[in-house]
């Protein structure tokens, strides 16, 4: 780590631009609801009227977006309990609600205190409850935390509402373009600018601890890979070899980055040791090898190769041996990512309709298209494996979209202006 800290000493703060680009928040549009969603009521929190954020509404939006829940419309509620002992189970049963969230919010000297309780209507019992204290500027964080608790209690799956997404924005054409790298909450809000440039920015990738981003920037008029601390802005140039420096992806232990370099001719997969800056070549052939993804157990890499003629997904075992072809459906499969349990892969598949997000068992089997859009790119899996965020087109604009891993529900996150692309879902941050 000594080398590393020395390296960081030389870091420069670049591109912390004095002009902030106008609001780059993304909004949410639900495009498809699941027919298997659980009916749930989230009652507006008492005391919430005076709050700068509607906590109950944020929770409702989160749960609906997940595809697991179908929240009851507020105007269908003729009773507004705020704690467990005020809940009339019969009232809610008649509205076909299976779960109910009640709560209250109040201001304190240093921020807010939010109290919530989750009720099982059919079982007529209180499931969980908690009082959450947050600083004045973290009301949304409290809402995401409560959403995580509710989601996990009911589904037994860890909630991913308190995570973030990184993404790239672009405006303009040809030689006159502006690019931005942003980080926002998983619901598209609270966007923060990480970098702006008049040269392309690509392929952001989160470190496993969620503190740093590796990405490709052309700011020196050719591609180089940088590693930047998201909160401090400190960064290093990790690689700047001749040719392509692309597609960075972190090892699960955070010590290495797999990438694609064309310094020896055509793009090949290499592994960079971040501490000593050495690179080890992994693939050896005359075809394109790019878009590596590290398995959650750290033992294998997926990558795209056109060694068979067109792009297909291969898996390389770091223990040695030949790379094994994984995809066989169709003539274009690229940019694969593992599910968090490593059992499945998500990738871009060219179907008869276009370029779509697809899912396949890691060991083979049937490839299933899960998106409905046809100009899709850059799938990135939520850390709990329930959703895949990806880039696609809406009209002539690049937008982010997300689809549940089972393909049943989806939503879109358009930006106010310009194109949004290259999303990367963060790991769990808490």
């Amino acid at each position, binding site marked *: 780590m000594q080398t590393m800290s020395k390296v960081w000493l030389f870091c420069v703060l670049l591109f912390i631009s004095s002009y902030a680009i106008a609001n780059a928040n993304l909004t949410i549009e639900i495009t498809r609801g699941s027919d298997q969603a659980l009916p749930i009521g989230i009652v507006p929190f008492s005391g919430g009227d005076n709050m700068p954020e509607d906590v109950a509404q944020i929770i409702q939006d989160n749960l609906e977006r997940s595809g697991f829940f179908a929240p009851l419309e507020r105007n269908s509620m003729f009773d507004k309990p705020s704690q467990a002992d005020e809940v009339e189970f019969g009232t809610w049963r008649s509205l076909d609600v299976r779960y109910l969230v009640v709560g209250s919010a109040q201001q304190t000297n240093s921020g807010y205190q939010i109290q919530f309780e989750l009720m099982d209507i059919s079982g007529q019992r209180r499931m969980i409850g908690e009082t959450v204290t947050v600083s004045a500027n973290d009301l949304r964080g409290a809402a995401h935390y409560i959403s995580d608790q509710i989601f996990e209690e009911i589904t037994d799956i860890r909630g991913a509402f308190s995570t973030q997404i990184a993404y790239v924005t*672009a405006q303009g*054409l*040809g*030689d006159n*373009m502006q690019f931005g790298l942003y980080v926002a909450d998983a619901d598209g809000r609270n966007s923060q600018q990480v970098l702006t440039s008049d040269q*392309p920015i*690509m*392929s952001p990738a989160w470190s496993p601890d969620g503190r740093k981003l590796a990405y490709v920037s*052309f700011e020196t*008029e*050719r*591609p180089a890979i940088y590693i930047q601390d998201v909160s401090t802005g400190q960064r290093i140039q990790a690689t700047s070899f*001749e*040719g*392509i420096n*692309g*597609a960075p992806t972190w090892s699960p232990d955070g010590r290495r980055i797999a990438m*694609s370099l*064309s310094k020896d*001719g*055509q*793009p090949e997969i290499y592994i960079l040791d971040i501490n000593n800056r050495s690179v080890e070549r992994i693939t050896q052939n*005359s*075809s*394109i090898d*790019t*878009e590596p993804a590290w398995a959650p157990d750290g033992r294998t890499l997926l990558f*795209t190769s*056109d*060694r*068979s*003629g*067109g*792009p297909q997904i291969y898996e390389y075992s770091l223990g040695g041996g030949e790379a094994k072809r994984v995809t066989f459906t169709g003539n*274009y499969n*690229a*940019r694969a990512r593992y599910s968090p349990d490593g059992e499945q892969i998500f990738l*871009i598949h*060219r179907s008869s309709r276009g*370029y779509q997000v697809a899912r396949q068992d890691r060991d083979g089997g049937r490839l299933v298209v899960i998106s409905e859009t046809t*100009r899709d*790119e*850059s799938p990135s899996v939520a850390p709990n494996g329930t959703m895949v965020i990806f880039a696609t*087109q809406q009209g*002539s604009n690049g937008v982010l979209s997300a689809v549940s891993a089972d393909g049943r529900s989806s939503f879109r996150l358009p930006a106010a202006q310009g194109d949004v*692309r*290259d999303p990367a879902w963060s790991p769990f941050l808490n």
Partner: protein
Amino acid sequence: MQLKPLARSLAVALSIVVIAGCSSTGGTQDGDSYGSQDGSSMGTSTSGVGTGTGTGGQYGSTSGSGAGAGAGQQADSRIPEVRTIYFDFDSDTIKSEYESVVMAHTRYLRANPGARVVLHGHTDERGTREYNMALGERRAGAVQRFLNIQGVSPSQMSVVSYGEERPAASGQGETAYSQNRRVVFNY
């Protein structure tokens, strides 16, 4: 498209030979409107790329540019105005209709050993971004090999792929896509 390096070089060399050797076959719409401007033996470009039938050996006269030196040097002192060539979908083959453009840059670079060019390779937006970076590099690399075979020093050339990151035209459809699949000569 998947070729081993040797096969690829041979294919490039062959396509050059073919371009040169098939001057009277087929003919694209604008095939004969250029090519003889400088009076050298250099190709009157037409179709024939990839047909594999060419045997024309009269080309490859990379040392024979003296024939047209007079007018040629005048023209070769300026960077050629046309600096972009376009490609077919999923292809890195230099189309015959752009051979005169590439040859003009060849002459300029050979006449001006101090000149440097950065070949920018681009793709259309379809497909994944990093894979397109590789395809853009392949396109620019094909132009670089062509120039090198024509006698341009490797030290005068470098390649940067922009993949699909810097489209020249916006929108979906072949009109925009065809303008975005390109290699640009940047001096």
